[in-house]
């Protein structure tokens, strides 16, 4: 009985904490959405207009038609999708290797992998640009997929290794006794158990790539490859900033990431994991 009431008390505390956090969390995002449907005059009114009397979709119309933001969104989707797939394939396999096999230089190699991510991107951009030109891949979506894959793989490997480490090796051994390869064990037994981790990692890669600016800026020059983050900067005028226009672009930029996160966060559930480990 006391366990149940204690549980209720904790749940109340959790909810109160979460609600106050979410309030602070959502004010800026709400403000962005709110601003995107305002007129220019309402957007800069002070005291702020929270519930605009006149709502308009003019800003979205401008963003979509005059600034052709859909082309940038398409580029972003291709680059981010490609990167996420490459990272998942290469990263998961490598993480499994690091987690399951003892081999000379393991500790060294895994640190090296992470160390590649410690260079400030600003310092990496120029040499990378030289390479991109040599490969004649400047201003292509492919070079951004390659760049982002290289940038994100270390994290994927590290995180997935962490998740694989938490899964007992007996599990894949049991699978292999039944007669299957390591790759089979990974696919059929280990990966389903590590699904929450994989989902979280994929969200991570997607968001990092979706929001990456510096490489995207340096390696592209026009709509052929230019992703959303680079285009967004163009919405800021030097002489006048239309807040509704910028906000509308921001909202459009957010939607695909939200959809992706909504789909993938569903896999961040216990179920399989707990059951598998116990078995």
């Amino acid at each position, binding site marked *: 009985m006391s366990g149940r009431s204690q549980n209720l008390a904790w749940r109340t505390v959790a909810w109160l904490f979460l609600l106050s956090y979410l309030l602070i969390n959502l004010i800026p995002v709400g403000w962005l959405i709110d601003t995107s449907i305002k007129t220019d005059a309402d957007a800069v009114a002070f005291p702020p207009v929270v519930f605009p009397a006149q709502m308009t979709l003019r800003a979205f119309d401008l963003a979509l038609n005059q600034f052709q933001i859909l082309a940038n969104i398409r580029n972003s989707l291709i680059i981010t999708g490609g990167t996420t797939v490459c990272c998942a394939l290469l990263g998961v*396999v490598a993480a499994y290797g690091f987690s399951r096999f003892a081999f000379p230089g393991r500790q060294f190699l895994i640190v090296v992998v992470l160390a590649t991510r410690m260079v400030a991107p600003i*310092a990496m951009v120029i040499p990378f640009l030289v390479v991109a030109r040599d490969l004649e891949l400047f201003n292509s979506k492919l070079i951004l997929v390659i760049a982002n894959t290289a940038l994100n793989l270390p994290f994927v490997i590290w995180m997935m290794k962490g998740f694989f480490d*938490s899964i007992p090796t007996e599990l894949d051994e049991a699978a292999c006794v039944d007669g299957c390869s390591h790759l089979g064990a990974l696919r059929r037994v280990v990966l389903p158990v590590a699904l929450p981790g994989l989902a979280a990692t994929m969200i991570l890669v997607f968001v990092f790539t979706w929001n990456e600016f510096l490489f995207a800026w340096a390696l592209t020059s026009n709509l052929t490859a230019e992703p959303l983050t680079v285009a967004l900067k163009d919405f800021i005028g030097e002489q006048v900033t239309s807040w509704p226009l910028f906000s509308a672009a921001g909202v459009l*930029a957010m939607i695909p990431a939200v959809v992706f996160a909504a789909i993938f966060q569903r896999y*961040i559930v*216990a179920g399989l994991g707990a059951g598998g*480990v116990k078995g």
Partner: protein
Amino acid sequence: MARNRLYAYSFISPALFVVLAIVVYPVFFLLQLSVSEVSFVQARMATTLSGFNHFSDLISDGAFLNSAYRTGIFTVSSVFLSLITGLGVALAVNKVRKGVTLVRLAVLLPWLLPPVVSGLIWRWMFHDQFGLVNWILMNVGLLQNRQPWMADVATAMPSVIWVDVWIHIPFVAIILLAGLQTIPDELYEAVRVDGGSSLHSFWHVTLPLLRPYLLVVLLIRAIFALRVFDIVVMLAGSKFGSVAGAPAGTTQVFGLLIWQRAIEHLKFAESAAIAVVVLVLTFVVSFFSIKMLPSKT
């Protein structure tokens, strides 16, 4: 055994190849640049090796020392605050039974915004005259006069940290949440059966089992914080390229200094030297974090 070893390499080599092939040349380029003098031959950068003078110059470089101090403050505060709050959020979300999808999405939202957008939105919200922050704080009576958040040397850095923490809590929370899901319910039940409190189970079950995830998150957050760039530029610089770290250098972190020396001053070698220092620093921080990671074997 040898077969097993070969097998292991076949697993890791594709990823290793991609990472190294793409990163080795830039890193080599950077190291070489940091010990060179740059000249411009027909408007193209050319380098001649010159030794470690750019590194020894840094010891007496006021801007570099200031950046080291500011980066330290930023990294420690931002990583610590986002880890603590993120852990709280993950634990709270883990307790949620109804509307899980919606709650999780709400938690994730700030992180899904491109930094250009969140930076500019916050810059606007921090505006001394028309900002939402001053308006809310003055209306609820927490503030008497309009605070120029980004112009005041006392509040500029805390404001930047606040925004960085705001952006990264979702990242911390989602990874820790995934970690929490791998902890079997049976363990909690065992504590409950033994009459342990929730605090007890948090301390003896959750925290130890979450340790690897906490450390991975710590590692990634620290790597990012040590070379933070765009969010500081959007908040404390200006919309157009300047990275002065105003007011009075209080937000001049390493990332800004590296950019300023290379892009604004065309001092590519001097900039590379700072980048190398940051690289070494990050490596040291990571090394100690990794030492704390439990080893599987």
